């Protein structure tokens, strides 16, 4: 198992990726000129309660290993904030894009 608690390096989704029995919420943060790197992405449940946070990769990628459910992902960046919702009902890859403005 991972011996630390910090987020691992954020990597892009691979087409056809097998997530096994894990519920993966993953995607990209975008800004005015395409992918936006370095935003802080927060995973919030349907009640707005915080569940996790990662810093997106330089290419804007982020991923969470969540429990099944409806999730909101919210990105914070010095250039602005943005959010999106995703329904991650069960194991598999649930992709979402967050536009920051």
């Amino acid at each position, binding site marked *: *198992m991972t*011996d630390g*608690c*910090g987020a*691992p390096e954020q990597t892009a989704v691979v087409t056809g990726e097998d997530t096994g029995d894990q519920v993966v919420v993953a995607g990209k943060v975008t800004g005015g000129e395409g992918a936006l790197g370095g935003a*802080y992405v927060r995973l919030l449940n349907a009640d707005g309660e915080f569940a*996790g946070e990662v810093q997106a990769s330089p290419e804007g990628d982020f991923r969470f290993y969540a*429990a099944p459910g409806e999730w909101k992902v919210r990105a914070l960046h*010095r250039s602005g904030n943005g959010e999106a919702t995703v329904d991650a009902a069960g194991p598999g890859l649930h992709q979402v894009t967050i536009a920051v403005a």
Partner: protein
Amino acid sequence: MSREDVLVTTQWAEENLNTPGVVFAEVDEDTTAYEGGHIPGAVRIDWKTELQDQVRRDFVDKAGFEKLLSAKGISNDDLVILYGGNNNWFAAYAYWYFKLYGHDKVKLLDGGRKKWELDGRDLVKEVPDRPATDYKASDQDLSLRAFRDEVVDAISTKNLVDVRSPDEFSGKLLAPAHLPQESAQRAGHIPSALNVPWAQTANEDGTFKTADELKELYEEAGLDTSKATIAYCRIGERSSHTWFALHELMGLKDVKNYDGSWTEYGSLVGVPVETGSNGGK
């Protein structure tokens, strides 16, 4: 103790980057963050390789801490400003660790690296060259640190605050949601523990909530402030963040961090474990 005694703002930090006797230190588990850019003049402390014993699951000993701080160019009289990623989890762990070894002139940068970045402040790659010192540490102040037997004895007698996310607390997840869910230990929490996730003590930008807001939060959660409190998480760094909120910002006297946390407790044979979301309420 006031907020200013234990925290500095990013504005204060920027104005004091070159103040003699003030040393900035970035503490992270992922040290590539520092390499990619850090607060000008800040030294790096690697949570994993420098603050943990590399053989036993424990801290570096007193001599090891003295050697580490001496090599970093930190002296006993320096005011150390700690900051890091992950909403200051590892910096809060280091803060608690500095206090444990008797270094009182230490503060956290409120909001940590996240706030600094969101403010759009400068980060540099240049690594400072600080001359070595002859740092002297005190013996560990164990009034700040809880061990497993004390935690088992605390069930239903002291406050136990589980600061992990609700899904980790209830047993749905074994680790925070940004990590793969692979683990050998049992899921759940220590019976009678309250679940007050660390994130509820912080604002979105990573700064700590005010002492009044924290008091309201823990009162609502059912914390009995007349009793001693032990905070835990999975490996003890998120609970350092909560230890900071309870002990340093709210001023509660008897608060310990259980750094063995769920990684230890959830692997013990014969101890009670509870699942579900009710906790000590």
